[in-house]
């Protein structure tokens, strides 16, 4: 994608390190913390945050992956066939503090679906949210506890996060798209 770059690989790396520190500080330690990445790009981000925590705390946090496809409220609106990536949760969530990790926070609907999915697996003590980019335009009363970068956008722009694990490079770009005329 040729859009305007808003975060470089270095900036992404620093944002993850900062988030890893905030997490520990807010929890006053690492006890009971679980990182759960939302498929797809939230998953490598969760692993990176866990690695950063391990580096400065010497503690290995459990990391899970959550597929929220079955919890979306817009199944019939998804312009392509949803591809289910799968959910793997390594520990019992009861009584834990779950940190949901995603790449971009936008309308909040993904996070709403993710919280619905999580509570089907147990009753966490708390659910927190960490995102790499908050681009605004919320449609639900949801906010992130930890944000890599706040990016003001307009609704005809797309924020694309590229990660080495999936896309072969680290970058965040913003691009204007031509919104197709609604069909009659």
């Amino acid at each position, binding site marked *: 994608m040729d859009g305007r770059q808003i975060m470089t690989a270095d900036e992404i790396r620093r944002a993850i390190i900062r988030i890893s520190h905030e997490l520990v500080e807010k929890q006053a330690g690492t006890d009971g913390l679980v990182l759960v990445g*939302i498929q797809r*790009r939230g998953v490598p981000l969760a692993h990176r945050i866990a690695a950063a925590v391990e580096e400065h705390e010497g503690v290995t946090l459990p990391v899970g992956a959550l*597929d929220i*496809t*079955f*919890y*979306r*409220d*817009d*199944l*019939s*609106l*998804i*312009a*392509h*066939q*949803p*591809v*289910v*990536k*799968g*959910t793997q949760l390594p520990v019992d969530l009861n009584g834990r503090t779950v940190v949901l990790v*995603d*790449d*971009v926070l*936008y*309308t909040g609907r*993904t996070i709403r679906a993710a919280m*619905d*999915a999580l509570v*089907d*697996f*147990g009753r966490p003590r708390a659910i927190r949210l960490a995102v790499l980019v908050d*681009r605004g335009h919320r449609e639900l009363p949801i906010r992130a506890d930890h944000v890599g970068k706040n990016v003001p956008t307009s609704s005809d722009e*797309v*924020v694309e996060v590229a990660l080495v694990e999936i896309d072969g490079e680290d970058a965040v770009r913003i691009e204007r*798209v031509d919104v197709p005329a*609604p*069909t009659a």
Partner: protein
Amino acid sequence: MNASRIPTPPDVAWQQKHLLDVDVLSLAEIQLVMRTTDAMKEVLARPISKVPALRGTNVTILFYEASTRTRVSFEVAAKNLSADVVNIAASSSSVTKGESLVDTIRTVEALGADMIVMRHGTSGAPYLAAEVFSGSILNGGDGWHAHPSQALLDLYTMRAHLGDVRGKKVVILGDVLHSRVARSNVWSLTAAGADLWICGPTTILRGFDTWAGRWASGGAPGHVGFTVTSDVGAALRDADVVMALRLQRERMDAGLLPSLREYAARFGLTRERLAVAKPAALVMHPGPMNEGVEIAPDVAVLDRSVITEQVTNGVAVRMALLYLLAGGHPEAVTNA
């Protein structure tokens, strides 16, 4: 995640509005069903094995033939996805009472059905329903013709044990003439590249020899050929999978077979017959079984019998199909 803005990925596979048979599915689509079934298996393993994917979707289960297993399997699948389920047991006598299938489908639609799972005794009936109904039709079995969800759960079960079935010897043993399971399995297994053998007495193989002969040098694009024989020993030798089919008592009345006893003696799946298959050969049966006729009771309970696993996988496959059909058809996206 601004998913609705991401352009359609090039690897999109599912293009079906209805699922009337597996013959229209590409191998890529079959593989998508398999992957989606994996996800459904994970859902089934959760403490709360229910997800809201089809919340607000009305799935009407319209069965013109008595069936417990398949109907309940679809019902559980739909409920696991939080669909609203309406059950209609339309006895075939309502046909003679004058309400046509077309009238019934229109009525069901007016009652709010978004999807219809349909079982009918006449081959091809779902194609007529699909022409009338604005939502999706999922064929739950039509006449002798097709039973796509069964063929897909059979394939899923085989893959769970064998990995890729390409080149694996799969034997379907029994009354294929009257079997929608056999016909759908021919399509899915020849698409998946299995070495498919079909075996039974000549009276109930009729037509399949023609089919196999015509496909000997390659059949429909993307499908391999298959073998038809009445020689049970040759069919079972070194088999990786043996699937026995139900033999119905009515076949004796129609003069197709002398007796159940003779059938069991010559074509029943026994330990002795199974001895020539591979040691770990899977034993399958779409149910309901006539133990002692097409399958010996001690074979049905062997460790390598996956008959109950077929039932469990049936729910997961049907969840996958309902889910894919609910989100999959192109008309649904025009208002995005």
